[in-house]
């Protein structure tokens, strides 16, 4: 019997809906889990995913991708390719696994929530594939670093990081809890799949895979490519969701969700991708600066695609564009200074040639940031390494959980006052790195008020002893796991 073509059965099979007779709408789609109640149920029937796939096709595609990726891993695992990689690139890979592997698995919770509580059958169908994608991404990105353990024991931070109170983990976990672990289906679609995946990661994964191949890391390049193609598919859930929301008169709420998460995504990107692109990736392999990447890809994408749906630029757009020049440079200085507190080896990336590149890409870098590295370099050269390590914590933002670096904003001409921004809620003082972080907090304080930043934990006695040794132990780092300078200070001694 000839098989029906997909187009003959797809919509019918996909749109599995029925009228509730024994329960009411709110029982099946409770608002706190679904978040779709602003739009009438029948309006959700307009939800349609641009790229369609059947379960048979999905499984076929995934098996093919897994076969290719795992075969390549087996071949590369027997070679010395990883040993030959630039130390800075190894840091990119180890940082990535610790920060991203577990969130990919946790993203399956968000996808599953859309798969159950998305108000359109088509949406639930697409999200079911998304759930399987994210389970796969969690598994493959813990399995690959497991293969590195003989060469890089901190590959196990792919699994371990999210079970610690490391300060980077606190920031990433706070972000992803907000974005998809503790979020309703509608907000997951707009904040995870539309804002983060369509806006940032889908593009970043393309660039990252290309960079990996360029530096000779075929294994990581193949892995990231295999993930990116899944992302490109399940990221589509955001577009029809925002379209239904806007078509039914709720642009303002969609804009709020985008504004909220675009800023948070930017903060995470500045930390992870900003440092990777401008400091860790070997100079010869840098195709563009982080700022150019954001301008050419993220900004253009937002302008072209998000605005097609009638969305405006977020209200803090000027501040975001301004930060491209300085924010991640400040964060890099802090991360390198606090290098024992991260699970990868921080690459200073400030050899004379690299400083020249930074000044060329970011005119004024030497004036604003080079002077700190002059002091750090002098301490390294004179053997005064103790002065290059911290003895207390920076004050962390109560929203993004990253160090407050408004002082660097003053040096870059972006701010006039280095003081953290404040907000008092129920008698507790909260401190913020920026107006958008404070705005996100104050719009829904009950969502964030119970959390303590790493600095709060030090101040309120959660960390004992309350010194840097106690802090490192609290963060889950044994001495053997402390990050060190990736190049063993060659950059400071003119050997780079």
């Amino acid at each position: 019997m000839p098989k029906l073509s997909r187009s003959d059965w797809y919509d019918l099979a996909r749109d599995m809906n029925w009228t509730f007779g024994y329960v009411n709408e709110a029982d099946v789609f409770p608002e706190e889990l679904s978040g779709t109640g602003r739009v009438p149920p029948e309006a959700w029937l307009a939800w349609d995913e641009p790229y369609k796939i059947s379960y048979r096709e999905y499984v076929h595609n995934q098996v093919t991708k897994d076969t290719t990726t795992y075969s390549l891993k087996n071949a590369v695992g027997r070679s010395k390719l990883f040993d030959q990689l630039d130390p800075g690139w190894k840091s990119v890979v180890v940082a990535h696994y610790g920060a991203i592997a577990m969130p990919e698995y946790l993203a399956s919770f968000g996808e599953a929530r859309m798969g159950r509580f998305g108000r359109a059958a088509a949406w639930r169908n697409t999200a079911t594939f998304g759930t399987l994608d994210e389970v796969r991404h969690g598994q493959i990105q813990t399995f690959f670093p497991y293969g590195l353990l003989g060469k890089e024991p901190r590959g196990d931070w792919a699994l371990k990081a999210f079970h610690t109170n490391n300060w980077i983990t606190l920031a990433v976990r706070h972000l992803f809890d907000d974005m998809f672990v503790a979020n309703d289906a509608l907000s997951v679609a707009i904040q995870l799949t539309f804002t983060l995946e369509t806006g940032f990661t889908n593009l970043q994964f393309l660039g990252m895979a290309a960079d990996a191949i360029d530096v000779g890391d075929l294994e990581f390049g193949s892995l990231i490519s295999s993930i990116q193609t899944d992302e490109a598919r399940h990221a589509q859930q955001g577009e029809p969701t925002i379209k239904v929301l806007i078509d039914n008169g709720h642009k303002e709420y969609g804009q709020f969700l985008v504004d909220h998460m675009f800023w948070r995504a930017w903060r995470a990107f500045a930390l992870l991708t900003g440092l990777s692109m401008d400091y860790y990736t070997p100079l010869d392999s840098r195709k563009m600066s982080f700022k150019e990447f954001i301008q050419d890809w993220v900004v253009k994408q937002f302008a072209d695609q998000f605005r097609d749906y009638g969305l405006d630029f977020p209200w803090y757009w000027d501040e975001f564009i301004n930060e491209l020049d300085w924010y991640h440079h400040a964060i890099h200085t802090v991360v390198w200074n606090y290098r024992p507190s991260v699970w990868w080896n921080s690459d200073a990336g400030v050899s004379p040639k690299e400083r020249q590149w930074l000044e060329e890409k970011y005119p004024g870098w030497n004036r604003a940031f080079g002077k700190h590295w002059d002091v750090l370099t002098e301490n390294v050269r004179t053997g005064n390494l103790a002065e290059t390590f911290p003895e207390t914590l920076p004050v962390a933002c109560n929203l993004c959980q990253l160090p407050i670096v408004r002082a660097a904003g003053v040096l870059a001409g972006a701010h006039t006052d280095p003081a953290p921004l404040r907000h008092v809620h129920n008698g507790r003082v909260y401190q913020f790195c920026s107006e958008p972080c404070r705005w996100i907090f104050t719009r829904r304080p009950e969502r964030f008020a119970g959390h303590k930043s790493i600095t709060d934990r030090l101040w309120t006695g959660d960390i004992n002893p309350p010194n840097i040794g106690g802090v490192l132990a609290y963060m889950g780092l044994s001495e053997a796991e402390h990050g060190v300078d990736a190049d063993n200070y060659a950059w400071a001694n003119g050997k780079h």
Partner: protein
Amino acid sequence: MALLPLSGTFLGDVTTVGVVVDDEDTAEAVGQKIAHHAVGRRVAARTAPIRVRLGGRVLDPDEIIGRTGVSPYDHVEVFFDE
């Protein structure tokens, strides 16, 4: 004698640090405690005196921090007086 958590920024540094001082400390001592985490580490050392600004007012070096109206978690700015 009570512990007083403060956030402090040494002007010219990249970040704000958390410190715990004694509320009987002088402004001079508070300034030195914050400078310890920045000067000679990320900010070049100078011979100029170090001053503390709280709420827009530069404190007298002998002023007792606990009697300045400061509250826990307040921010102080520290700088070379040149």
